[in-house]
Each structure stands twice: as structure tokens, then as C-alpha cells.
């Protein structure tokens, strides 16, 4: 492998890892703070990707806007969706056992997949890369790298920094961190924990939808795409340590590297590498790399 190929693979690994982080961060937030194992999280990613495909013409017709207008409309819809879902399906589940939530979110996966099939159909669709990001950058003499992938990495990085800022520097972040440590205590201090949960859930959904929308031009849009992402995201969350955003970032980058280079260097075993990595890490550190708290 020469230097240019190596560089390209590094960029690919970075882009994949950051995208994974984006989806997984919502999952780890919802799990760490609300204690909900949300199997339907992959469906939100899927919904995002399908939004990028289906919303674009509608937004074009009504607002005349392009890529960014679609993103904004999608995000607004996602926040609404998350807010309503929490109210309708999760608000009465907190007192119940975790496994009841698993059952509920499993039901939601089936419903979302089938609604998708009813509304958009079961075909694979491509999503066009927006024109101003469609170019490529020359790397070395022969190779080029698509600008859009760099754009994904950039957006994910900005969002990761934004999340870090909200968590550590704002009042909302403080309330969220407190709520994850001790729900009753926060409530007795006069903070509306139910509303806080709803906000966290809506934010988690919005991040996953956003990740799906941004990824759609690269990955294309296909049935079942949510499930693949879901399992990998659980791997990320668990390796990083449940509820830890920092851990999720590190784990996602690690998996990005292992998966990308695994596909190049050991194509026969690429599928299994991620799981071997997870098993090894958990046997070494049974609580993940970073314990939340």
C-alpha cells in the first residue's frame, strides 16, 4: 500500500467513524440518560436517508431551496417526530423493566420499516450529491478524493464539538448530566425531568435523522439499512462505555479504522473483525473504555 492509498483509506476511515459517532451518540445519550434501550434508533437513520431522497423534490417545489433547505426541513420534522414518539410510546415505560422497552422498540422497527415500504416502496434509490460539493480534490498524481466525503467529516466534527460544548458549558447540559446521575434528586430540585427527557429523546432522534440525510448520497438508500447501522452503533456504544460521549467518539473512530483497513487488508475476515475487537475490549475492560459519570 503506497502513501496515497493509505491516506485515502485514512480519510475514509475518519469519515465512516465520524458518521458512526453521530448515530451512536444519540443512542448513547438516550440509553445513558433515560435508561432506554432503543432498538428503533437505526430506523431513525433509515428515515433520515429516505427523507433526503423523498423530501428534496418537495422542498424544491415549495421553497425553491436546495440541499441545505432540505436538511433544515428534515431536522425540524425529526425533532417533531422524536418529541411525539417519546410522548406516545416511551413516557409510560420508564418505570418498567428494560426488556419491555426492547419489546416496544422492536415493534416500532417493524412499523417503521413497513411504513417506509408503503410510502416509498422497496427499491434501492441513489441520492444526488449537491452540485457545489460534487467535485473531487487531487491527491498525489493519480488519485482524487470526493469533496462530499470531506464535507461529511467536517459536519460531523462540528456537531461533535457542538455537543461537547452543550454538555460541558451550558445549563441544559448540566441538567442533562444531573438527570442521568439521579433522576429523583433533579426532580426534587424543581426541574421538569419529563420535559428534559423529551428534549433529549428528540435531540437523539434528530441527530440520527441528520446522519442519515448526510450519509444518503454516499451510501444510497435501501430497505433494511437501519438494522445494519443499529448493530454497529450498539457495538460503538458498548465499546465506548454506555452514556459516554467521549467514549463513543473514540470507539467510533476505532471501528472506522478497523473496518476500513480490514476491508483492504483482510477482505475475507472484514465482517468479523469488528466483533472480535469488541469482545477483546470488553474482556479487557468489562465496562467499556470510558465509564460514564
Amino acid at each position, binding site marked *: 500500500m503506497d502513501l496515497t492509498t493509505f491516506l485515502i483509506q485514512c480519510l475514509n476511515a475518519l469519515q465512516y467513524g465520524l458518521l458512526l459517532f453521530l448515530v451512536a451518540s444519540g443512542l448513547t445519550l438516550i440509553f445513558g440518560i433515560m435508561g432506554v434501550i432503543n432498538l428503533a434508533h437505526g430506523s431513525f437513520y433509515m428515515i433520515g436517508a429516505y427523507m433526503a431522497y423523498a423530501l428534496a423534490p418537495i422542498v424544491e417545489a415549495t421553497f425553491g431551496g436546495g440541499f441545505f433547505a432540505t436538511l433544515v426541513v428534515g431536522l425540524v420534522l425529526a425533532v417533531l417526530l422524536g418529541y411525539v414518539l417519546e410522548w406516545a410510546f416511551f413516557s409510560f415505560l420508564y418505570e418498567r423493566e428494560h426488556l*419491555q422497552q*426492547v*419489546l416496544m422498540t422492536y*415493534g416500532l422497527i417493524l412499523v417503521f420499516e*413497513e411504513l417506509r415500504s*408503503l410510502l416509498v416502496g422497496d427499491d434501492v434509490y441513489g441520492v444526488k450529491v449537491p452540485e457545489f460539493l460534487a467535485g473531487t480534490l487531487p491527491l498525489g498524481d493519480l488519485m482524487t478524493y470526493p469533496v462530499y466525503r470531506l464535507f461529511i467529516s467536517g459536519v460531523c466534527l462540528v456537531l461533535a464539538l457542538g455537543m461537547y460544548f452543550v454538555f460541558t458549558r451550558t445549563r441544559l447540559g448540566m441538567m442533562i448530566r444531573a438527570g442521568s446521575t439521579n433522576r429523583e434528586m433533579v426532580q426534587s430540585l424543581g426541574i421538569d425531568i419529563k420535559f428534559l427527557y423529551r428534549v433529549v429523546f428528540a435531540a437523539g432522534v434528530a441527530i440520527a435523522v441528520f446522519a442519515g440525510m448526510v450519509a444518503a448520497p454516499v451510501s444510497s438508500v435501501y430497505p433494511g439499512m437501519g438494522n445494519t447501522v443499529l*448493530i454497529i452503533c450498539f457495538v460503538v456504544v458498548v465499546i465506548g462505555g*454506555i452514556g459516554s460521549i467521549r467514549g463513543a467518539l473514540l470507539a467510533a473512530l476505532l471501528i472506522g479504522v478497523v473496518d476500513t483497513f480490514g476491508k483492504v487488508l483482510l477482505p475475507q475476515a472484514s465482517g468479523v473483525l469488528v466483533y472480535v475487537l469488541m469482545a477483546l475490549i470488553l474482556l479487557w475492560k468489562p465496562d*467499556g473504555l470510558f465509564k460514564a459519570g
Partner: protein
Amino acid sequence: MVCSRPAKGEINDMKKSKFLFVALALAALALWPLMAGQYGVDLVTKIMIFAIFALSLELLVGSTGLVCFGQAAFFGIGAYATVLLTPQDGAPSLLWLLPACVLAAAFYALLVGALSLRTKGVYFIMVTLAFAQMAYYVVHDTPLGGGTDGIYLLSKPVLGTLLDLDKPLVFYGFTLACLAGVFGFLALLLRSRFGRALAGIRVNEQRMRATGFSTYPYKLAAFVISGGLAGLAGFLFAVKDGFVNPELISWHLSGEVLIMIILGGLGHLRGALIGAFAFALLQEFFKSEAIFGEFSKHWHLGLGLSIIACVALLPRGLVGVPEQLAARLRGRLTGARGTGTTEVGNESV
């Protein structure tokens, strides 16, 4: 936890009614081939195999409190062992093939359990998933198991001239006997000192350790037994279909069997039985073209909505329905709602 301890007579009544339920269910299954056609027999055979599979997981999740998300690995290994161990020439004897498949699954369970029991909670869920995925990729990506296409079973096992599992009715009877055997075995196991220790681990592992139990061997033993039983279900599945493919190890199947036992109600062996039947029959119902016509290809929608309705309306799973109804009749529903879903140890059957 039950808020008021029922009187002794009431417990005896409850035990009787549970025993009656299981006996009636098995009797109904035994009589089923008399009234059902070929399709019905085939369907119920499949459901019974899944019921055995669900029972194996119930031992871990419901009785010991270990949520395993890789149960399909043991099922799949049992199934693959059946196909791979069957010799080229002639039908193998059930006498050695069945134990060999169960042992193969139990051996993998020993390996997985020994390592993954070091972790707890969600981490345990994910480590078991990781080991199942490893098995999946070994079968999926190597020529050992025929790759993605899967392999066919050359000939179905026999027991001398006594049992020929190639005949649907014989196989139905054999599966029913296995189901009854596994149910009885687990019921006895959970009543034994070993079973009580597992219940203690589920309720409070810390306290069990404090009372002097080394909990690790108990959990490992439960894990291996569970793996072996899942292997039995896998064996039956391979013999029934005469074909295995990597999907038998996929996490979808691990998820489905978990959904079955939660749907049925955790902490009861009956729950696994009821859950397996309910899940499969709901699927059949929403898939049926006679009822839904064109819409039947969107059967996931109906299944998903019914599952959501079950979670919302039945906090204890399907097993808790009679109790819930009785409570409603007595007008005590508001009081009963506060009680948790964990049951006391002696309610294991």
C-alpha cells in the same frame, strides 16, 4: 414481588391451574394432527421447535436474569452440526447424532459463557452478540458451512426401524416428545436447589455471594444447559427443513426468540411456550392472504402494532392476562399496577 402473600391454599390452587394448563396444552398438541391437514402439522411442528428454543432462552433470561442476545449461535451450531456430521452413506442413527449436536452447541456455550460471564448487564448482552456474530461470519464467509447458500441434509436420522424422522407425523410426535421432555426437565431443574440458586442470582446476585454461593459456576452451568437445549432445537430445525443456512445464526433470530419470551411473559416456563405460539400465530395471521388480501405482504405492520399494543396493555406479558382479568373483576387493577414484574422464586413453572 407480590405485595400481599397469598394464602397456602391459594398457592396450591395456582399450582394446580398451572399444571392443568400445561397438561391441557400438551394434550391439545398431541391431538392436533387428528384434525389438522399437512400444512397445520408442518406449522405446529415449526412452532414447537421454536418453543423449545424459547424455553432454552427462558432459563437464562427469565430464571437467571442473564439477557443473552446470541442464542441463535447455539441453535445454528446445533443445526449445522446435524448437517455436517451426517455421513455420506445412509441415514445416521439418532442415538449418536442427537447427543453429538447438543454437545457441540453446549461446548460453544461453555466457551462463550466462560468469557462473557465476566461482564454484566448491557455489556453481557453485547458480548454474547459478538460471539454469535463471530460464529455467523465463520459460517457465512468460509466454505466449511457452504457459505451464504447453506447446505442440504443428505439423509434424515433414524432409530433402527422404530423411528423414521422423514415421515411428518413421526417427526411431529418426536418434536412434541422433545418439547414435553424439555419442559419437564426445566420445571424439575428450577425446583431443585440449583434452580433456587439461579432464582437467587436473578433477584440479588450480591446477596447470593454474601450468603456464600460462588455464583459464577451456577451461571456458567445455566448457560451451558441453555446452549445445549438451543442446540436440540437447532437439530430439530435442521431435520425438519433438511437445509441450513447462515440466517440460522443471525442476530435477527436471536432477537426474535428474545421477543417471544418477553411477549409471553418472563419468569415463567409457560411464558416461553405461550410467547412462541403467539408470535408465530400472529405472523401467520397477518401473512394470511385470505384475510388481508393484497395488504398481507405488509404483515410486519400488523405484527409491530400488536407487539406495541401488548407492551402498552400487558405489563406482565401474555402469561399475566388471567391475573390481570381477575384483578379487574375484583376492581383492584389500580392497586395491582404498582407491583413489579419480578415474581417470587417458587413461581417458576
